[in-house]
C-alpha cells in the first residue's frame, strides 16, 4: 500500500536548480570536464548518474506468501547490468504498492471462493535514494496451492531516468500488457489443468468414501452411526463441497476468454453474473469416511490420488516457480517479449522520442515511404501499424487536408504531459467513467488545438487510466515538494524534446549558417573550382575523427581545419538570413519541406542567434504517437522551455555518437579497444534502438552517411553521380579493391530509391560481366575491375550497355554519366556542407529525400496532370501541363524533374501492383549523351 510520503517528486533538483537557469556560457562547455558525472561513467545527457546499475533492466518480482517480496529474475540476466543495485530492497518497494491483489478468496456474502480477475495495475515508482525509477506492472497469477489461489507478481522496468518512464508510460504499459497477457494466458491454462487434476482426485476420493460409507451402512444395522462413520460422512461432505468449489473455479477460469471478448469494461458485472450462475448447483451430502480401496480404474492421462478434502495451507512445501505456474511455452514467449521490451526502450529518451515521432510520420506516408526508407524498418512499422490501434480519422478534418493547409508539417510534442501526469492523475477511476473519457479523448484528439493542449493532455491521461489501469507517481522522499515543483518540472521535461536540443546547439555555434548553396549548375571537368581542394583537409579530418568518433562532437569541433572554417564563414556571411543551419539537419528538414519557389515567409528568423525552428511538442497517445500539424510558433511555452540547458548535454551529435558506441559495445564484439573502453565507461542505458541490430542498424546508417559525406567532399562530380542514382540510371562503381568499392556502394545506397519494400536494388560486388537484366534489377552495382584479359568481357559489356549506366571509376577517379544541371542534388550533397557526422548527414539525406518523395507523391496523384481534360486534348498538352507543374509548382528545374518523374513511376507501379515486390519494374532510360568527368 502506498502511504502518502511515498508520493513524491523526482530527483535531480540539484542538477536543475543550478545549471538550467544560468545562462550557459559557451565555448569551454564543449570540453568534457564540465560534465560532472563523467568520472562515474555516465553519459553527459543522462542526468542520473547516481544509479547503481549501468543501464535499464527489467525485474520480475513476486510477493511470496512464504518469504515476502523477492526478486525472481532480471532481463537482461546479467549481474553486470544491475551491479550493486539492491534487488531485494527494490522488490520490497515495488511489491508493497500492489493493493489490487489484496482481496481474493472468499468475498463477504459468498459461499465459495471466487477468482477475482483483477486487471493489472500499472504504477510508476521512484526511489531517489537508489536513483531508480520504475514502471511497475503488477499481475496476479492463479495457483491452486497458494493462499487465495493467487500469487502476486510484478514486472518492473527500471531506469535511472524518470522522464523516460513517464514519457514512455503508454508504450511501456502497452508492451508490458502484452507480456502480462501472455503470462496470464499460460497461467490460466495451467491453472485449469491443475483444477481438472484436482477434480479428478476429489471425484475419486468421493467415490472411495462413498463406497466405504455404503459398506459401513450395510454392515451397521444398529440404527445409529458410529463416530467413525460420522467422521467419514463429514469428510465426504467436505469432499463434495470441495468438488463444487473446484468445479466452480474451473468454470470461472474457463469463462475468462469469453468475458474477455466482451471487453474489459464489462468485466465486473459480467463476472458477477457468471459467478452467480456457477454457484447455483451447490449441494451437499453427508457420507461416511472410508478406507483405501482400489475400486477406481486408472485413466491413462492422469491417475487420481486419494486426497484430503480440506486443502491445508502448508508453509513448508515449495511453491511453484513462475515457469511452472505458466506453461513453459508461454513463459519463454513472455521472456522473449520482455527482452524485446528491453531492446525497445534501450537508449536515451531523446532518441526514443525522436524515433517515435519519426515512425509516426513515416506511417503517414504509407504510399511513399517504401522509396527511401530501410525496408526492414518499414516492414516493422507496417507490422506495428497493424498491431497498434490505428489513429482514428476525425470526421471534419482529414490529415491530408491539414497537410495541404500547412506547408510545414510539424511534430507537436507536448511539454506538459509529464506534469499533468504528476498533478492530475487520480489514483483510481471509476470504470464506468472510463468509457466516457475514452470517447472524449478520441474526439479531443482529432480536433487537436495546440492552445488546449494542456487540458487535453489531462484528458489523455485520464483516458488511459480509465482502461482499468492506475497510475501513481511514487517517490521515497520529498513528497511535499511535488506541487511546489510543478513549474520547474514542466521545464524539466523540455530538454527531452529533441527540438530544444537542436536549437541550443545552434545557438552556440559560431558557424551556424547554411553551407548549402548551388555551387555549379553545370559540373564538368573544366568547371571544377580550385577551392574544391580546400575541402579536402576537412575530409581528412573527417577520416581521423571517423576512426575514433566515439569521443564525440567535441573532438570534432576541435579538428575542423582552418581553411574550412574560413570558407564556411564566408558562406555564412553570404547566406546568413535565408538559409537554415546546415549543421542542424532537422532545421533543414523544415526548410526543405518547403517548395523552393514559395515565398520565404516561413523561413525562420534568427536574429537572436537561435534558429527558431518550429516548435515541436510531444505528447502521448494510447499506443503510439499522435502527430499533428500546426502553424509554427503555435506553442507559447516554447521560448521558455528552450532555455536553461547547457548545450553540451544536448548535442545531438554526441548523443548519436554515444549511442553508436554503446551499441557497438553491446552488439559488436569487434570494437577497438578505444571504443570498448569508452563504451564501458559510458552508460549502456543510452544504447541501442528499438529494433534488433541488423544491416539497417544505427551504426550502419552512420557509416553510410559518413562515407557518402566523404564521397561528396572528395569527388567534385558527386552531383551527377547522385543524380544518376535518383533518376534510376544504374551507377556502376568500378574498382579493383573490393573493400573500397563495397564501402562506396554502401554509402551511395542511401540515395537509391527502392522498388519495393522487399529489396534494395543494390549489388555490392560483382565480378562477372553485366547483363541487361542486371540493370533492370539493380540500380547501384559494385563491379570488379580485373587487370587481365579475363575482364575484357566485363568491360565490353559495360561499354555496350553504356546508355543504361553511369560509370564511376574509382581507380581513375572518373565518372561517365549524363549532365546534371538541377538544384536539388547540390542541396542534397553539398561538398561544403557543415555537417560533420555521418549520422547527421544520413538524417539530412533522409529529410531531403522525404521532401522529394512528397513532391513525387503530389505529382503522381494529381489527377489533372495525367489525364486529358477532355477527349480532344492531345498528349502534348498533357505533357506540357506536367512540365509546367513540375517547374512552377514543384520548383524543379532541368534534370530535377526527371528525378521526380522517375519516383512517380515507382510510386505508380508500387500502388497499382497487386502483389508488391513480386516483379521488377521496367528499365526506364533516356537517350541522353553522357559526359566524362575526371579529377
Amino acid at each position: 500500500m502506498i502511504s502518502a510520503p511515498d508520493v513524491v517528486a523526482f530527483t535531480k533538483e540539484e542538477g536543475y536548480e543550478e545549471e538550467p537557469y544560468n545562462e550557459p556560457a559557451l565555448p569551454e562547455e564543449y570540453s568534457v570536464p564540465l560534465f560532472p558525472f563523467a568520472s562515474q561513467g555516465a553519459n553527459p545527457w543522462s542526468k542520473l548518474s547516481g544509479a547503481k546499475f549501468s543501464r535499464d533492466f527489467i525485474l520480475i518480482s513476486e510477493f511470496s506468501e512464504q518469504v515476502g517480496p523477492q526478486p525472481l529474475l532480471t532481463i537482461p540476466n546479467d549481474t553486470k547490468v544491475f551491479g550493486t543495485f539492491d534487488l531485494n530492497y527494490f522488490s520490497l518497494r515495488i511489491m508493497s504498492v500492489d493493493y489490487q491483489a489484496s482481496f481474493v478468496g472468499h468475498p463477504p456474502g459468498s459461499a465459495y471462493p471466487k477468482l477475482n480477475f483483477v486487471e493489472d495495475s500499472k504504477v510508476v515508482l521512484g526511489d531517489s535514494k537508489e536513483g531508480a525509477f520504475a514502471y511497475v506492472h503488477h499481475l496476479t497469477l492463479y495457483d491452486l496451492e497458494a493462499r487465495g489461489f493467487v500469487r502476486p507478481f510484478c514486472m518492473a522496468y527500471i531506469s535511472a531516468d524518470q522522464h523516460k518512464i513517464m514519457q514512455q508510460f503508454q508504450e511501456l504499459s502497452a508492451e508490458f500488457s502484452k507480456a502480462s497477457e501472455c503470462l496470464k494466458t499460460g497461467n490460466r491454462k495451467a491453472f485449469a489443468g491443475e483444477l481438472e487434476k484436482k477434480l479428478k482426485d476429489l471425484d475419486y476420493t468421493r467415490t472411495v468414501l462413498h463406497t466405504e460409507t455404503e459398506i459401513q451402512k450395510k454392515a451397521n444395522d444398529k440404527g445409529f452411526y458410529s463416530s467413525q462413520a460420522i467422521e467419514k460422512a463429514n469428510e465426504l461432505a467436505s469432499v463434495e463441497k470441495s468438488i463444487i468449489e473446484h468445479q466452480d473455479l474451473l468454470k470461472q477460469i474457463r469463462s475468462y476468454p469469453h468475458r474477455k471478448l466482451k471487453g474489459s469494461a464489462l468485466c465486473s458485472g459480467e463476472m458477477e453474473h457468471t459467478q452467480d450462475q456457477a454457484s447455483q448447483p451447490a449441494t451437499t451430502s453427508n457420507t461416511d469416511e472410508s478406507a483405501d480401496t482400489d475400486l477406481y480404474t486408472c485413466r491413462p492421462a492422469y491417475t487420481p490420488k486419494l486426497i484430503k478434502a480440506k486443502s491445508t495451507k502448508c508453509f513448508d512445501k515449495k511453491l511453484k516457480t513462475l515457469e511452472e505456474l505458466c506453461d513453459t511455452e508461454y513463459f519463454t514467449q513472455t521472456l522473449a517479449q520482455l527482452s524485446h521490451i528491453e531492446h525497445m526502450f534501450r537508449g536515451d529518451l531523446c532518441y526514443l522520442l525522436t524515433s517515435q515521432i519519426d515512425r509516426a510520420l513515416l506511417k503517414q506516408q504509407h504510399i511513399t515511404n517504401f522509396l527511401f526508407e530501410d525496408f526492414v524498418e518499414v516492414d516493422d512499422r507496417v507490422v506495428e501499424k497493424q498491431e497498434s490501434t490505428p489513429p482514428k480519422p476525425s470526421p471534419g478534418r482529414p490529415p491530408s487536408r491539414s497537410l495541404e493547409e500547412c506547408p510545414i508539417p510539424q511534430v507537436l510534442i507536448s511539454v506538459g504531459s509529464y506534469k499533468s501526469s504528476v498533478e492530475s492523475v487520480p489514483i483510481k477511476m471509476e470504470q464506468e467513467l472510463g468509457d466516457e473519457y475514452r470517447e472524449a479523448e478520441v474526439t479531443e484528439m482529432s480536433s487537436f488545438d495546440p492552445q488546449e493542449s494542456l487540458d487535453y493532455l489531462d484528458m489523455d491521461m485520464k483516458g488511459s487510466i480509465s482502461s482499468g489501469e492506475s497510475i501513481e507517481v511514487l517517490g521515497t522522499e520529498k513528497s511535499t515538494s511535488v506541487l511546489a515543483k510543478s513549474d520547474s518540472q514542466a521545464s524539466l521535461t523540455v530538454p527531452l524534446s529533441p527540438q530544444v536540443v537542436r536549437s541550443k546547439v545552434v545557438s552556440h555555434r559560431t558557424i551556424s549558417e547554411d553551407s548549402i548553396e548551388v555551387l555549379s549548375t553545370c559540373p564538368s571537368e573544366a568547371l571544377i573550382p580550385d577551392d574544391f581542394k580546400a575541402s579536402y583537409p576537412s575530409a581528412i579530418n573527417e577520416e581521423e575523427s571517423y576512426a575514433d568518433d566515439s569521443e564525440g562532437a567535441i573532438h570534432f569541433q576541435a579538428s575542423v581545419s582552418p581553411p574550412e572554417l574560413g570558407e564556411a564563414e564566408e558562406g555564412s556571411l553570404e547566406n546568413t538570413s535565408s538559409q537554415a543551419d546546415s549543421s542542424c539537419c532537422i532545421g533543414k528538414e523544415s526548410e526543405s519541406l518547403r517548395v523552393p519557389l514559395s515565398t520565404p515567409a516561413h523561413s525562420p528568423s534568427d536574429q537572436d542567434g537561435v534558429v527558431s525552428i518550429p516548435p515541436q511538442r510531444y505528447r502521448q497517445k494510447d499506443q503510439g504517437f499522435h502527430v499533428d500539424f500546426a502553424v509554427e510558433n503555435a506553442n507559447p511555452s516554447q521560448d521558455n522551455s528552450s532555455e536553461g540547458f547547457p548545450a553540451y548535454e544536448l548535442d545531438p551529435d554526441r548523443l548519436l555518437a554515444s549511442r553508436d558506441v554503446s551499441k557497438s559495445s553491446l552488439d559488436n564484439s569487434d570494437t577497438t579497444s578505444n571504443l570498448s573502453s569508452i563504451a564501458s565507461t559510458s552508460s549502456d542505458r543510452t544504447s541501442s534502438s528499438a529494433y534488433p541490430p541488423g544491416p539497417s542498424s544505427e551504426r550502419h546508417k552512420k557509416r553510410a552517411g559518413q562515407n557518402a559525406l566523404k564521397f561528396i567532399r572528395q569527388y567534385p562530380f558527386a552531383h551527377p553521380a547522385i543524380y544518376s542514382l535518383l533518376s534510376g540510371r544504374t551507377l556502376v562503381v568500378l574498382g579493383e579493391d573490393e573493400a573500397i568499392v563495397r564501402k562506396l556502394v554502401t554509402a551511395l545506397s542511401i540515395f537509391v530509391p527502392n522498388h519495393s519494400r522487399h529489396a534494395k536494388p543494390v549489388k555490392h560486388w560483382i565480378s562477372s560481366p553485366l547483363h541487361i537484366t542486371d540493370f533492370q534489377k539493380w540500380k547501384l552495382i559494385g563491379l570488379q575491375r580485373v587487370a587481365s584479359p579475363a575482364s575484357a568481357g566485363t568491360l565490353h559489356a559495360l561499354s555496350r550497355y553504356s546508355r543504361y549506366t553511369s560509370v564511376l571509376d574509382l581507380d581513375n577517379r572518373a565518372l561517365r554519366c549524363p549532365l546534371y544541371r538541377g538544384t536539388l542534388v547540390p542541396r542534397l550533397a553539398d561538398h561544403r556542407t557543415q555537417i560533420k557526422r555521418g549520422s547527421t548527414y544520413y538524417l539530412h539525406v533522409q529529410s531531403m529525400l522525404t521532401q522529394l518523395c512528397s513532391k513525387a507523391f503530389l505529382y503522381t496523384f494529381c489527377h489533372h496532370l495525367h489525364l486529358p481534360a477532355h477527349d480532344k486534348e492531345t498528349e502534348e498538352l498533357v505533357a506540357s501541363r506536367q512540365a509546367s507543374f513540375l517547374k512552377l509548382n514543384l520548383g524543379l528545374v532541368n534534370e530535377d524533374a526527371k528525378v521526380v518523374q522517375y519516383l512517380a513511376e515507382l510510386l505508380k507501379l508500387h500502388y497499382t501492383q497487386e502483389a508488391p515486390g513480386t516483379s521488377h519494374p521496367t528499365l526506364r532510360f533516356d537517350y541522353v549523351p553522357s559526359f566524362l568527368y575526371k579529377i
Partner: protein
Amino acid sequence: PAPAPVGGQASRPEPAGLKREGLTGRVSRELWASRGFGPVGLSAQPRPRRPPRWLRGFSSELLPWAEGWWPSWAGSVLRRAERAAALPSSVTQSHIWPQKSPLQTIGEEQTQNPYTELLVLKAHHDIVRFLVQLDEYRFASAGDDGIVVVWNAQTGEKLLELNGHTQKITALITFPSLEACEEKNQLILTASSDRTVILWDCDTGRQVRKVSCFQSTVKCLIVLQRLDVWLSGGNDLCVWNRKLDLLCKTSHLSDTGISALIEIPKNCVVAAVGKELIIFQLVAPTEESLEWDILEIKRLLDHQDNILSLVNVNDLSFITGSHVGEMIIWDILDWTMQACECNFWDPSPQLDTQQEIKLCQKPNDISIHHFTWDEENVFAAVGRGLYVYNLQMKRVIACQKTAHDSSVLHVAKLPNRQLISCSEDGSVRIWELREKQQLAVEPVPTGFFNMWGFGRVNKQASQPIKKQQENATPCSLELIGDLIGHSSSVEMFLYFEDHGLVTCSADHLIILWKNGERESGLRSLKLFQKLEENGDLYLAV
C-alpha cells in the same frame, strides 16, 4: 588502285595511317582481322566503332583512363587488354582511336527513338528463334529449348508455357480458326527437330493434337486457309487437314529439305529446296477422286546458290533471295522472272584509295536473309546491309551497305516510313526512309566557285562520281535509333502497334521495348482507376 600494304599496317599501328583510313571511311573487316583485332563476324564479338560522342574532342590525357574500360571503340577487347597489361599507358594512348568505320552510328542522343523503356522476359533456356503474334496483346515465342511460351505483350507477363517438344523448335505458325468453328481459341502449330508437329491451344495451354509420323524434321509450315489444309515441309511436302490427318504427300525431294514455303494463287505453293524453286499444285477432292493430291508443276533453276528467303509481296509477284545475293522477282501467275537484282554486293564505284579491300566478298555478306515489303518497295536484308528496291522503278532506291556490324536477320516495315532491322550483332536499329534533297543544288555552287577559282581541284574530280552515286539512290536510309539490350544475335522481332517491339535473341532473352511516355500515361490511368475503385478519388470532394 594498288593493294594496300595490309600486313605492314597490321604490324605497325601508325597513327597517321589510321587517320588516313579514318578519312576514307573504308576499312574492311579483313583489315581489322589482319591487324590482330581478333576475329570478326562472330556475333559475340564487338565490331570497332567510332568513339562515342561524349568522348570525341577530349584530349589524349584522358585516354589512359578511358582505354581501361572503354575498349569497344579502341579495338578488339582482347587486344587492348593485353596491351594494357604489357605496356605503360603512355605508350598506347596515342593510337587507340579506331579508324572511321563505315557503319553508320548514332550517338546516345536519339530524340526520335521512342523506345525508352524495356522489360526483359526470361523463360527460355536456349536460343529464342521465333516470335508469333497471337492477337492484339499476346504473342508466343519458341526456340531451341523446345518450349513455347505465351506472353502478354502489355505487361510482359508469362501467360503459358507449352511443354511437349523434346528438341528444338523449327517452325511456329498460328493456326487460324475457322469462322464456322465453335472453338474460338487461338491455336498454333509447332514443328520440332524431334520430328513431331503439335497443335496447341494458346488459351488453355492444352496440347490439342500431336503428329509424330514424320520421316524428317519439318522445317516450314504453311496454312492454306482457303482449302482448310496445312502443309509441312521437310524432306518432303505433306498436306494435312485440320484434324491433323495426312491427306497426301510428295516423294522425297531433297536431303536438305524445304527451307521455305509460300502460297500462290491457283492452289499452288512454292517451295524453296536448295537452289531450286519447286511449284506444287494441290488437287482438292472432286467428284471423280475423293483423294487429295499434290503435283509438282515446275522447277525454277535460276538461282546460283541456296535460296534463303521467299516471300510473296503482292498479288502479282513473289521474291526470292539467295545466299549469293541474287534477288529475283517472279510473276506469281506464270512463274517467270520479272526482274533480277544480283549486284547488291558490287561496291559502288567510289574512288577510294583502298578500293581493293573489298567489303563484301564473303558470300555470307551478301546473302539475303529476309525481305519485307510495302506497296512500293521491297526491303531486303542483304548481308550486313539494307536495301530498298522499288518495284516500279525496278531498282534500288536506297541502301545502307553496312547497316549492322553483322548479318541482318530480320527486317520489318513500320507504317511511318520506318524500317526496323535486327542483326547478329545483337542490336536492333530503326531507320527512316528519306527522300534525298538538294541533289541538283549542290553542283551549282561548286561550279560557281570553280569558275572563280575557289574550288578545290580534287573535289571537282570526284564530283561526277559522287553525283552518279547519289543519283543511283534517290532515297536514303537514316538511322534514327538503335536498341541495345541483347548480348547476342537478335533472331527476330515483332512489332505491336500498341505495345511496342518484342525482340528475341540467342542470349535466351526476349526484350519488350516500350514507349516510355506512353507507358507512363498508361500507368497513371491505371493508378487513377485503382483509386476510383477504392473510392479514394473523390474523397476530397
